[in-house]
């Protein structure tokens, strides 16, 4: 539940003391004194905490140091953990509620410092007849910045104690009517970020691009591709430094989306112009693969190991060490690729091309057609392929076909995500949901297969480097078989999952949303 509270800005001309005296004269407030603090704010690269309406800070006073999670809007404290330094990953914290909560929000992402704020806070409390605190009032002076400090606005913060909204409301009314304070339009964190030219949520792995259904298709497509190029680029540094595993993941997803877009919307471009990029992005997809595969293994290692009986798990440790060693090697190689001229010229030429495609594209068949028309056609086509090939899969059909179906599902999904903005929000949301469930099943089927395969390959690689304990080899083989079993289950479930996807209501929805040439309502 969100906190009930208010934040006001105090004009620079209003002295804090006068304000405090006026409050103390009007309300029976307890003065809890003043508190100077240094507060270093942290969040993940993709602002997961901010996105949940929270802030996380390492807060130091003269005597204490703690990690505090607050409500972004009111600044009310939600949770804290004492005598700890900010961890890089949630799992570095001692087991307990704080870690559980943090992990559920940031998952595998690293915490990065975003800004530092020094505050000097006057703390007041309002009590009721039972002598119970029912509202907390803070007057806060703040300055932001790591090295040279920049003064921020003064704030008055009023937070209701839960179940006691009235006293806080009265305080807020007094602040508005008698102290003539304006409500704060942003949070302390936002203001601090702005003071050094940043904004929160400047990165999201699912960036939205504004689209107009009537604009020429090539313009929209180029904008989307530029956005994807940006996503690739902002993830390069974090990938090279291996800050956490999500940079590479997001980078790879952006590459795959780019490739899918190039393939499925080639009709808005000149083919010859596009060809070198198609090849180069395939190369980029290839060189980023090995590292990601190892990331996936290492992240899932404990879960995977849980397939085995506890007695066999210890035998896997040399295998973990081997994977870690391989990861270091692959990481170094990848890092070099990402600074290579080949990569850099790919990205700069690609950007150039997207911004100034030259006159050639004008002869491309779909370039100047309306976006909605082209999108409908492409999506409808991708949908029909998926539907027909899906229906053709019987319990005896070869696995390779099921794997190919996964690609078709992904193609459709990407198209729908690219052009989501031009379709009715709710309906496309429902349809994406249905497709997601199918993809989950196909993804499982594929992943178990690939993982089992890779396990055996890794084991072979490990054996080449030196003698491997039999126990370890047996454990790896048992793991691969366990995965094989899971893969069979996924295959069994496929038919039901596909029937669900292909049910009457979803078919009608697909027709309504995408079928080209349908009548306008």
């Amino acid at each position, binding site marked *: *539940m969100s906190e009930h509270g208010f934040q006001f800005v105090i004009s620079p001309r209003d002295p804090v003391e006068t304000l405090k005296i006026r409050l103390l004269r009007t309300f029976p407030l307890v003065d809890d004194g003043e508190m100077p603090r240094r507060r270093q704010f942290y969040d993940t690269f993709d602002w997961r905490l901010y996105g949940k309406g929270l802030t996380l800070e390492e807060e130091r006073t003269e005597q204490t140091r*703690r990690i*505090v999670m607050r409500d972004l809007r009111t600044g009310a*404290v*939600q*949770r*804290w*953990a*004492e005598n700890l330094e900010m961890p890089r990953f949630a799992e570095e914290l*001692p*087991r*307990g*509620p*704080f870690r*559980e*909560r943090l992990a559920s929000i940031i998952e595998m992402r690293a915490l990065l410092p975003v800004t530092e704020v020094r505050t000097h806070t006057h703390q007041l409390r309002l009590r009721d007849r*039972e*002598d*119970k*605190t*029912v509202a907390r009032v803070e007057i806060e002076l703040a300055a932001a910045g790591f090295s040279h400090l920049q003064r921020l606005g003064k704030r008055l913060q009023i937070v*209701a*104690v*839960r*179940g*006691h909204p009235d006293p806080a409301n009265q305080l807020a009314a007094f602040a508005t009517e008698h102290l003539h304070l304006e409500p704060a339009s942003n949070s302390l964190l936002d203001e601090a970020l702005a003071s050094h030219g940043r904004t929160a949520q400047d990165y999201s792995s699912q960036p939205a691009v504004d689209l107009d259904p009537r604009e020429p298709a090539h313009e929209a497509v180029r904008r989307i591709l530029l956005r994807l190029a940006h996503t690739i680029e902002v993830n390069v540094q974090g990938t090279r430094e291996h800050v956490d595993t999500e940079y590479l993941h997001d980078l790879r997803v952006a590459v795959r989306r780019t490739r899918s877009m190039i393939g499925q919307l080639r009709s808005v471009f000149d083919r010859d112009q596009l060809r070198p990029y198609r090849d180069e992005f395939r190369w980029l997809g290839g060189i980023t693969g090995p590292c990601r595969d190892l990331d996936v293994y290492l992240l899932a290692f404990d879960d995977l190991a849980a397939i085995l009986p506890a007695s066999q798990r210890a035998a896997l440790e040399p295998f973990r060490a081997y994977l870690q060693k391989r990861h270091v090697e692959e990481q170094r190689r990848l890092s070099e690729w990402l600074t290579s001229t080949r990569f850099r010229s790919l990205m700069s030429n690609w950007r150039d091309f997207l911004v100034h495609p030259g006159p050639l594209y004008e002869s491309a068949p779909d370039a100047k057609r309306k976006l909605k028309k082209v999108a409908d056609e492409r999506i409808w086509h991708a949908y029909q392929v998926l539907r027909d090939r899906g229906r053709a899969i019987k319990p005896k059909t070869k696995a390779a076909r099921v794997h190919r179906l996964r690609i078709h599902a992904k193609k459709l999904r990407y198209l729908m995500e690219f052009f989501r903005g031009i379709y009715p929000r709710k309906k496309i949301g429902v349809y994406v949901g249905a497709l997601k469930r199918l993809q989950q099943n196909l993804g499982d089927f594929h992943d178990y297969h690939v993982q089992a395969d890779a396990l055996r390959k890794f084991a072979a690689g490990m054996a080449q480097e030196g003698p491997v304990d039999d126990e370890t080899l047996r454990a790896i083989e048992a793991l691969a078989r366990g995965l094989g079993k899971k893969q069979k289950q996924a295959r069994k479930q496929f038919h039901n999952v596909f029937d669900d996807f292909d049910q009457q209501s979803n078919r009608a929805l697909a027709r309504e949303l995408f079928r080209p040439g349908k009548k306008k309502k």
Partner: protein
Amino acid sequence: MRILATYNLKGGVGKTATAINLAWLAASEGARTIVWDMDPQGAASFYLRTRPKIRGGSKALLKGKREVDEVIKGTDYENLDLLPADFSYRHMDVHLEDTKKPVKRIIRLLRPLRAEYDFIFLDCAPSISTVSETVFKVVDALLIPLIPTTLSLRTFQQIVDFLDKKNLQHVQLLPFFSMVDRRKRMHTDIMTRLPLEWPGMLLSSIPYASDVEKMGIRRSAVGEHAANSVAAQAYRDLWSEIKSRLDIY
């Protein structure tokens, strides 16, 4: 999220004092904590300076007419909230028995609390009833204060027997000695004997101390009005031991 109940079918053994002091400790360490005062007498609510009253009473709450969210009260301590008692809780059994599935009702009530809080302390009334039986089914552990007397050992055995009879042997029991007076021969005797018979017994104990009694006058946790006292230290030790039993920190 963990649910802990202070329970004993014997009255006046320190259940409420324990619930309040441990909840206060959990909150002061930064965990979001709530005490659900399930005793119609409302002692826990009193300590937390909140009127023991719920609009519509326990009936409205159990029947889903009122959301838990609307009746939760904050306290003087950041991070420590209270679900107050209500005099109608004395009929809670009846209301629960009325409803087809008492356990489901309570679980439904607890659902939003689980999502929000790290620790939920249930301060139970001293009885064996539908309410307490339901509590046994939802808790992670039962904290059982025992005064080291022969009589209270018998009540402990009764609790164990009851849980056996109801097929609830899996409930984690964390008994500990409460209101210990080391000058009393019987206390020290029992305290050396029982942990041998009952290895699950917590090693920390709470002494008989006027600072605990003062909670009623000061209306605050011992750690607040007597931070450096023996009793405050005893609660801190008890809390760390409980946490390590629950495999946290």
